[in-house]
């Protein structure tokens, strides 16, 4: 439901939901799994994600509560569908649009040594920044070393991060309905106006 000015309550709820997903890789991974597979049952999730059933129950419950999953209770076996989310954060002229592709990258980090090292050393914001370089890296228009340099990462480590996120982009571009909204660093370098430290 939306009014002419949009629904402010829904916007605030959205910020809180996305923040939860960004901070909790397990929820992020579950969310994008359901987004990519649609209409899945608890049994299917338990089996393919190899997560204990009780965890799947509790996590799907959390995601339904956050409003990013819907539960279809019309059949005997309930099924879950993800609500595609996009959230544009604008702060004093700095802007970023979070889409399911970033959520997927967060979800993969615990099982990927390069992504987890990136987040551990530089935070989720660096992961989000790196994603803006992977778009032109995959589509053409950005080299590995130029991306690493602008992200202020050691070149070889930067290449490893690009490789990790390349897989995310290749897997998500057909499932993320807001993929086109991800910023492209070819047009404007990440953190252009900020002092690089």
């Amino acid at each position: 439901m939306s009014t002419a000015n949009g629904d402010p309550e829904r916007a605030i709820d959205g910020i809180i939901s996305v923040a939860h997903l960004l901070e909790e890789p397990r929820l992020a991974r579950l969310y994008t799994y359901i987004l990519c597979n649609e209409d899945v049952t608890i049994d299917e999730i338990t089996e393919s994600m190899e997560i204990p059933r009780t965890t799947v129950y509790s996590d799907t419950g959390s995601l339904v509560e956050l409003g990013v999953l819907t539960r279809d209770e019309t059949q005997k076996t309930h099924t879950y569908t993800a609500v595609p989310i996009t959230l544009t954060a604008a702060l004093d002229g700095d802007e970023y649009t979070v889409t399911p592709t970033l959520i997927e990258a967060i979800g993969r980090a615990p099982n990927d040594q390069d992504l987890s090292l990136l987040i551990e050393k530089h935070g989720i914001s660096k992961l989000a920044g790196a994603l803006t370089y992977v778009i032109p890296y995959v589509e053409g228009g950005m080299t590995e070393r130029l991306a690493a340099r602008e992200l202020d990462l050691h070149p070889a480590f930067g290449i490893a991060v690009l490789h990790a996120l390349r897989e995310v982009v290749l897997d998500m571009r057909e499932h993320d309905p807001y993929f086109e909204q991800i910023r492209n660093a070819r047009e404007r370098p990440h953190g252009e106006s900020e002092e690089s430290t």
Partner: protein
Amino acid sequence: MEESQRQNAVWIADSGLFIACGRQQNGKYIALARFATTNGITFLIPQRIHNELGGAPETSTPGQTPVNSAIDAGWVAVADRIDYTTPAVATVMDDVRRYIANVSNRPEDQIEKADTALAGVAVQRLARGEVSSVTVITTDTDAGAGIKRAVEAAGFEGQISVIDGFEFIDTIT
């Protein structure tokens, strides 16, 4: 592969090949070593790339990729210093820099030297007549395209091929 071809060809590898093979350990690096040893190939890496692979954080993939043991085992070798007085070397490296700057929408002075070094090592071997053909393997599509174009423009059309590192790994694993 013909024996004559093998002797007259040189394979030059970019950092991305080793990193892609080392990521998420699943035997890709072993497959790369096997490919090199069974085909009698030594992957040549520019000095800059050797330095680059050596300085990565310890817990990252490149920090754990054993390039030095591959050098000891003989299937990777570090190229001699690039001799800028060799005809075509400086021109080709400038061309690569210009190409990457243009395609990436950035000023030329921001282009990293390791990308141009791959082209420098390739064209130096060709210009000196040490080899008749060069194969560059990179996971960087734009850098690869720039290297191929610049080396061909220097008069070595048909003597350079660029292989996509990701596709290459798929074929050997």
